[in-house]
């Protein structure tokens, strides 16, 4: 659980980040916004994947639905952004419920595959809808000012993190952890597993949808391929895992670190981001499957044996 120093550091960092748009060049603000949105995705995945242990490979579905909800409301119905983002969020939650209830009955990799299939299918469905602009997509009204989107994304990330913080010390969170550790035993001990899983999935969908809505308005464009980008799933999962799934700050640390390194590499070699993430995954999964938070906690005691231990436990 969290020690007071952690929350003080977090609030301090939050305040510092608020002032970035006044101090930083535009490129950095844009990088910041992207990273903040990715961190929100990672944090929302953390709720269903990290705490409940249901590794969804398709949360990009909600990101896309949120984006399209916002876009359709603004473009087809002339609504302001405030309404648009609300529509996106509500749609995200509705879909999380509709899709979640059947799919959450599956365990382990079957659940992962089902969510992946849903994500793939959504691209197909949306590209057939006229109201969504079919394959061409929609162009959203322009709003100038990167600072606006930056602060909005920061606010969203703060909200998501606060939610995870609340989860980590609530009865609900304990129930999720019990489900993750042993779902059958959790049920026998009185946890309403169906309800809790659905709630976790809903929360993940909610925050992902909001992130999608902000992103769509920011880049003023949405189309099926970019909205339901499958690689987003890779990124949000590896960010959460690398930093430490099932912890409050793990996804944040993972997102900021990985996004920064990837950005640095990208300026050197174009398109490197995918290669970088792919390699990070392979190395991280083999040597530090429990992420940075676990690594920083146990490395001081174990040293390099930490990595050997992970290998020894899992190799053939």
């Amino acid at each position, binding site marked *: 659980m969290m020690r007071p120093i952690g929350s003080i550091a977090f609030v301090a960092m939050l305040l510092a980040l608020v002032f970035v748009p006044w101090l930083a060049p535009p490129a950095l603000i844009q990088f910041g916004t992207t990273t903040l949105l990715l961190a929100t995705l990672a944090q929302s995945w953390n709720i269903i994947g990290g705490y409940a242990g249901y590794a969804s490979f398709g949360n990009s579905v909600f990101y896309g639905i949120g984006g399209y909800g916002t876009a359709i409301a603004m473009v087809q119905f002339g609504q302001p952004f405030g309404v648009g983002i609300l529509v996106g969020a509500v749609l995200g939650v509705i879909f999380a419920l509709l899709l979640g209830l059947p799919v959450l009955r599956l365990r382990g990799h079957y659940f992962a595959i089902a969510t992946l299939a849903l994500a793939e299918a959504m691209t197909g469905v949306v590209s057939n809808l006229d109201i969504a602009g079919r394959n061409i997509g929609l162009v959203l009204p322009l709003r100038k000012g990167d600072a606006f989107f930056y602060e909005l994304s920061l606010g969203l990330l703060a909200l998501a993190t606060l939610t995870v913080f609340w989860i980590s010390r609530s*009865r609900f969170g304990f129930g999720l*952890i*019990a489900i993750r550790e042993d779902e059958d035993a959790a049920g*026998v001990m*009185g946890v309403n597993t169906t309800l809790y899983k659905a709630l976790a999935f809903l929360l993940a969908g909610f925050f992902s949808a909001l992130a999608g809505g902000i992103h769509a308005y920011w880049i003023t464009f949405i189309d099926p391929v970019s909205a339901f980008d499958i690689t987003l799933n890779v990124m949000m999962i590896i960010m959460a895992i690398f930093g430490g799934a099932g912890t409050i700050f793990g996804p944040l640390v993972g997102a900021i670190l990985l996004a920064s390194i990837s950005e640095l590499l990208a300026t050197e070699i174009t398109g490197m981001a995918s290669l970088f993430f792919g390699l990070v995954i392979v190395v991280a999964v083999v040597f530090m499957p429990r992420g940075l938070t676990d690594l920083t906690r146990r490395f001081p005691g174990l040293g390099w044996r930490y990595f050997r231990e992970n290998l020894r436990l899992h190799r053939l």
Partner: protein
Amino acid sequence: MQTILAVDRLTKRFGGLVAVDDVSFDLFEGEILGLIGPNGAGKTTVVSLISGTITPSTGKVLFQGAPIAHLPAFRRSRLGIGRTFQLMKPFPGLNVLDNVAVGALFGTGGGKSQLREAREDAAKWLAFVGLGHRERQRADELGGPDRKRLELAKALAMNPRLLLLDEVMAGLHHGEIDEVVSVIRKVQSRGITVLLIEHVMKAIQSLSDRVLVLHHGTKIAEGAPQAVLNDPKVVDAYLGTRRV
């Protein structure tokens, strides 16, 4: 005596196999009922049918007069049914205290709503079973006998009215068995009804108010421990029929 649990013509089929065949019995409040029988007799299946892990093919289960045979497991826990598992499965990522806290958070009547209260409860139950000194340890680091204590504590933290114990003494030596027996007596003294599956006959004899015997899924004897254990049908079931 009040009946806390009534099992009526309970039957469970798995495909072609009849694991539990038309079993009926009553459990009286505050008693300890020993459930014995050779391996594969259907004892764990009966317990699973009561706790809700599986649902019956036919038959009824009534807890405090209300039918529960088709309620999901977590609802039965909220009503006051707790159980331990033969294959002890602690929550591996949690420490011992938090393992028990889960039970306190989600037990009878919905459990506690505050984490802190639940942890305090958990600490008390850990002390009750004799595991107080291991609160902070990771649950998967415990040895066999301690794991059984943890299982027990988890179930007790739920504040059950009925406790289903599935072979809690398997693999323990004499001294440990005596300790567990005294803990179970303490449990009974708190007014909790106990259904005890066991192979350790001395424990059955010293603890049980009544004994029930299953064989091939059917009830073959029921009554006072001495009478049942000396029943030739029961002896036969355990030792097998002599071939001439």
